[in-house]
């Protein structure tokens, strides 16, 4: 795998198009099209399953090779239009976990044509002090598209924040980096697939609403082990009273984050140990995500059929599920390097090891 190009111009261009594309849960078509375009000529098998997952298989040269599933979700959090009035105001509801405080005074894009809109707010001149201290109710917010543009919308159309991707120095700024960075990593992996394993890659749908795509993808693949490749918050900010920050989840620039426990999965200890020893051997920095809430596609995968040992590896980023996320190129590169090294060295003996 030493020939692997890391994150160069071509990869950044792909990440840019993945970040700018809109794929709110249940409507992942734009992302699916990018994945299909990138991989249709380099996968042994590629298909779209009934829920819309893109399932890619890369065969091993060994018939009895370990079947390894990797999953990254194509969908992102956003909103759905639930009411349109004649003035062109749209009422909306959230899809996936968004803090509603993010919505007021933001530009958004809505529907298949990425129609631009704005979630308007009252001018400061006209508000009372008490109003400015409370969160606006979601029911009170409207997307303002103008009457002519709103005619092009349908109830049920989805949308998201109108953030354009930018690379600034070593940082990546964009919407939906959760989990388009994971999608980009898996596209690179398929293009450089190791031959020692049967590689089963799922680009999943509906993760943000409960890992629904991964559940059926795992049933179909029926793998021996699985890795969910996702993105996880870094809250490595200074604490206001200068005490030690003990609740950071992960830290930017500290490498891929391995999950031990979240609300949905207790990772298989054998897989955690294998990741750690690989990282140490290859001198790739890594971190353990602080055990706690949250969940990834692994939550659905490991419970499928008679059980699938699973672990999640996430790329740290700041400001999760907000209009703009920030990640570092080095974390992305280290995640890719780690996965390449891990997959090249893994074999059936992982399953007979003590937990």
């Amino acid at each position: 795998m030493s020939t692997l190009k890391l994150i160069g111009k071509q990869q950044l261009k792909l990440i840019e198009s993945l970040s700018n594309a809109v794929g709110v849960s249940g409507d992942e078509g734009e992302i699916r099209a990018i994945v299909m375009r990138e991989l249709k000529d380099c996968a042994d098998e590629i298909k779209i399953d009934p829920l819309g997952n893109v399932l890619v298989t890369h065969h091993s040269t060994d018939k009895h090779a370990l079947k390894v599933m990797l999953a990254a979700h194509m969908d992102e959090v956003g909103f759905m239009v639930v009411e349109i009035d004649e003035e062109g105001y749209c009422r909306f509801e959230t899809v996936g976990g968004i803090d509603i405080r993010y919505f007021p005074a933001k530009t958004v894009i809505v529907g298949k044509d990425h129609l631009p809109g704005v979630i308007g707010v009252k001018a400061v001149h006209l508000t009372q002090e008490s109003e400015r201290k409370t969160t606006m109710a979601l029911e009170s917010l409207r997307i303002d598209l103008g009457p002519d543009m709103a005619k092009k919308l349908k109830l049920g159309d989805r949308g998201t924040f109108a953030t354009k991707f930018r690379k600034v120095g070593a940082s990546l700024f964009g919407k939906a980096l959760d989990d388009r960075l994971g999608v980009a990593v898996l596209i690179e992996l398929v293009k450089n697939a190791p031959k020692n394993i049967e590689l089963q890659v799922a680009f999943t749908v509906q993760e943000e609403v409960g890992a629904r795509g991964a559940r059926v993808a795992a049933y179909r693949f029926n793998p021996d082990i699985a890795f969910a490749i996702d993105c996880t918050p870094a809250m490595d900010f200074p604490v206001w009273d200068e005490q030690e920050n003990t609740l950071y989840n992960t830290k930017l620039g500290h490498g891929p984050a391995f999950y031990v426990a979240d609300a949905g999965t207790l990772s298989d200890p054998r897989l955690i140990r294998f990741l750690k020893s690989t990282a140490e051997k290859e001198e790739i920095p890594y971190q353990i995500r602080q055990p706690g809430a949250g969940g990834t596609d692994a939550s659905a995968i490991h419970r499928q059929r008679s059980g699938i040992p699973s672990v999640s590896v996430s790329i740290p980023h700041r400001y999760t599920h907000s209009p703009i996320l920030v990640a570092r190129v080095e974390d992305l590169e280290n995640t890719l390097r780690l996965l390449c090294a891990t997959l090249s060295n893994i074999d059936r003996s992982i399953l007979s090891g003590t937990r």
Partner: protein
Amino acid sequence: MANRTGDNGMKSLIQKLVETTGPSGYETVIREVIQNEINPEKGEVDALGNLIVRKGDKLAGGYRIMLAAHMDEIGLIASHVDENGFIRFNSIGGVRPHHLLGGRVRFMNGAEGVIGGDRLENQEKVHSLENLYIDAGFENEKTSTVKVGDVAGFVRPFLVLGNRLVAKSMDDRIGVAVLIEVLKQFKTSQHEVVFVFSTQEEVGLRGATTAAYGVDPDLGISVDVTLTGDTPKSSRMAVSLGKGPAIKVRDSGMISDPRVVRWMVQAAEKGKIPFQREILEGGSTDARVMQITRAGVPAGCVSIPCRYVHSPSEMVDYRDVQNSVKLILELIREPIHLERF
């Protein structure tokens, strides 16, 4: 401790089980303890670590019965080691913070520690998890043998108070003890009996989910603890310690198959075994996921009444334990007729 033939009966087995550390996802040690107990039965270990022991063949008219007791227990997981060596943590399973302060824990690598808490502005308040830490004697982060992601169980010695037995992890090592005893005493019948010592129950019945899929049973019974309503100012519940195994009618995750309930009641009456009917308003057991695996399975649960569940001092009555063994043996010995709802 006395051996199995002495007056202590199952007590030395129970002590061994409850004094072993094995939080959800980290059941290797407790699984080995169980494997040693059931020797020469080996069993198989599935992808999520469930221990599965098959006894007998399914003959004409017989059932494949899955009996499940979970071997995991609630515990803690390190989330941060600070510069002075104090360990912040999160919970594994339903840990209540008010049971923690002053408690002791043991990590899987053997490190032990005590639980302390930040000074709270309002001393009347109970510490939340974020305000608690483990002091394992380390002076700084560098010398700590405990790292982020390491898992710990509670430490509390086994205690015998007459008929009452007290320990951490009675939930569900007492069910494990019952199944081990059933396994030892069970000869053969027309049924294939599959004993499952399941994993990850406390975090959402995960082990039993995949075990049930793999075993593909005709009938599923979990053996777990249930709450009681027999302590001062307890919530109202018609289950008491010492009045026999509780035959579950319903809990918040499952409605027992009425045919299974009827069959259990008849078996208890026939065997002159005391029993109680159980309706549990909060919580569920492995039977929930057995019932809805694949195309569906008739399921029920034999519960052992237990006070102070999910505290470090869970209390059961030894007579209930023995009667649970009797009831389950009675259930799997005879032909089963579940045709009519």
